[in-house]
């Protein structure tokens, strides 16, 4: 592993902020540290950068232990949440700053900054000052400045938090492509699971100073191993010991089932039902149109269940009796999770 955290523990006065953090990051990959605010994810980033010191444990980058190294000697590019652009320097000077402090020759500096301006599409704004830039442009300057001196690792603290939804989406995919093109090993911190799933190659879910789960976005989304991850990532309906047809349920034992709305198909009585699979009766409580999907709140055996339905299908009425087919559920028993698919053949009915 290119970056390795071994037994990192951090205590602020009496408070345990991080407790025995162990994980590795592959070279050239993008890792997201995902967790709610106050979970300690930013502290992990700051410890790697050398802005904080771990109480116990050790961090290595490219096989070298960096614990005793000064922050500037670690070969790390750091992007703060608010970008922290130097407000009295132009875009060009901002990007060139780290190269000047490291005494690059003038021609090399010019060459590198010009190259980065082109890469981040900021050439036209080279002589602008930070206050004249939009949020997305500021983020790009911060990125260019951080990677200018060829650091081994790029760390970004909530890189998209200060942006509008639309720009955030654009910038996410832009940043992902760019990081992969440049090939720099990157870690970013976020509290937004969509951001982590869309941008990262690997996600480390952190809660209350400890790692909950590590895995690829699809694994984290589909197979959460803890109740926390199941609740924190994406949306799920939580049901208590439901009588799910077609699932192997624990016998004589209470359990929890987490069902994602996209795993529940909803049919009106007059719609052509799937040929196989047991359909169950539920009632429509409410529907919310949110553009791409219609979110359907259902009542099923007295419990609330959410489902998605295409806006192209016929609208549902409040109180209407409908047929549902549950494709997949996450069953939690005694703190263990098991992802189950409906054993009956899935409905041959596409949403």
């Amino acid at each position, binding site marked *: 592993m290119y970056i390795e955290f071994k037994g990192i523990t951090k205590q602020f006065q009496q408070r345990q902020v991080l407790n025995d953090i162990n994980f590795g990051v592959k070279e050239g990959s993008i890792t997201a540290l995902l967790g709610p605010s106050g979970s300690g994810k930013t502290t992990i980033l700051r410890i790697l950068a*050398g802005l904080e010191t771990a109480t116990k444990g050790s961090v290595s980058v490219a096989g070298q232990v960096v614990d005793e190294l000064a922050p*500037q000697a670690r070969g790390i590019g750091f992007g703060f949440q608010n970008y922290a652009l130097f407000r009295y320097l132009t875009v060009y000077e901002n990007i060139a700053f780290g190269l000047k*402090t490291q005494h690059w020759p003038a021609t090399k500096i010019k060459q590198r900054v010009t190259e980065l301006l082109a890469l981040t599409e900021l050439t036209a704004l080279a002589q602008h000052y930070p206050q004249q830039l939009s949020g997305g442009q500021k983020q790009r300057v911060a990125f260019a400045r951080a990677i200018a001196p060829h650091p081994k690792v790029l760390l970004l603290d909530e890189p998209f938090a200060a942006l509008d939804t639309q720009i955030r989406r654009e910038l996410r995919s832009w940043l992902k492509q760019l990081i992969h093109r440049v090939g720099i090993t990157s870690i970013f911190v976020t509290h937004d699971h969509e951001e982590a799933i869309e941008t990262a190659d690997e996600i480390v879910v952190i809660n209350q100073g400890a790692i909950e789960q590590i895995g690829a976005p699809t694994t984290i989304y589909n197979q959460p191993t803890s109740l926390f991850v199941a609740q924190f990532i994406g949306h799920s309906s939580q049901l208590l010991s439901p009588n799910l047809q077609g699932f192997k349920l624990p016998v004589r034992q209470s359990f929890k089932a987490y069902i994602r709305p996209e795993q529940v198909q909803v049919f009106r009585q007059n719609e052509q039902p799937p040929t196989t699979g047991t359909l169950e009766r539920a009632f429509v409580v409410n529907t919310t149109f949110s553009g791409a999907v219609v979110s359907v709140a259902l009542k099923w055996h007295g419990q609330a269940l959410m489902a998605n339905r295409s806006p192209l299908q016929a609208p549902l009425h409040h109180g209407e009796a409908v047929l549902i087919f549950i494709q997949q559920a996450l069953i939690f028993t005694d703190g263990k999770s098991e992802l189950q698919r409906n054993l009956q053949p899935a409905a041959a009915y596409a949403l």
Partner: protein
Amino acid sequence: MQLLQTKPIKWLLLVLAWLFIGIVLVLPVGLVLVQAFASGWHTYLTTISSLVTLQAINLTVTATLISIVFNLVFGVSAAWLIAFYDFPGKRLLNALIDLPFSVSPVIAGLIFILTFGRGGWLAPLFSAIHVQIVFAPPAIFLTTVFVTFPFVAREVIPVLEAKGREEEQTAALLGASFSQILWQITFPAIKAPVAGGLVLATARALGEFGAVAVVSGNIQGKTLTLSLLVQNLYNDFKFNEAFAVATILLGSTILVVLLKQRLLKN
């Protein structure tokens, strides 16, 4: 807003404002000038070019310059410390910086007498090395520094706190040295409050009377600042001379205020 468009109120406020300014500011200043030149140009010029006056100017300017330098160094350091670092006793330090503003100048002077004067705590130390503090220029410098040192710190701390330390941290991570960070990142951001604080400190240092009067000992040619000289002349019934010296203080204060306006505009 109906209220704000009422002409009578506007005129009433305007008259009140000018009346107030006129009575407490313009009139006294005008009288100072009239009095200063009452015995003619010759007396005026003789007074302000006399040895005693020149010595007073020398002492006042020296005390002011020392205060400015101290203010710059202490003010910026204290602001940096308070805005950028967390440490135990931070709130206490922050409160103590304001002390000179809340303590009466006379008390401030007495503090230095008690500390450095005969029988004072540090008196044995300084008499051992034959340095006189109280009733000598060092006490004037000390008290002037004391009454002025909050100015720059007070102006700079809120600006630095609002700015945050991320820019400095980023610069440090990019390998910048302390002086590079200070001059290229921090200083451009605090230029205005530093200048503002220095102007206020200068005005206060030039005009300080109470604290200096207590520690000065009133020794002509040695420990008389301009303010003290004015009072001495006045007590000796040399009114014209007193006002003549006062015009020097007046002029320098106006100069400093104008300088501040210039600096803030840029």
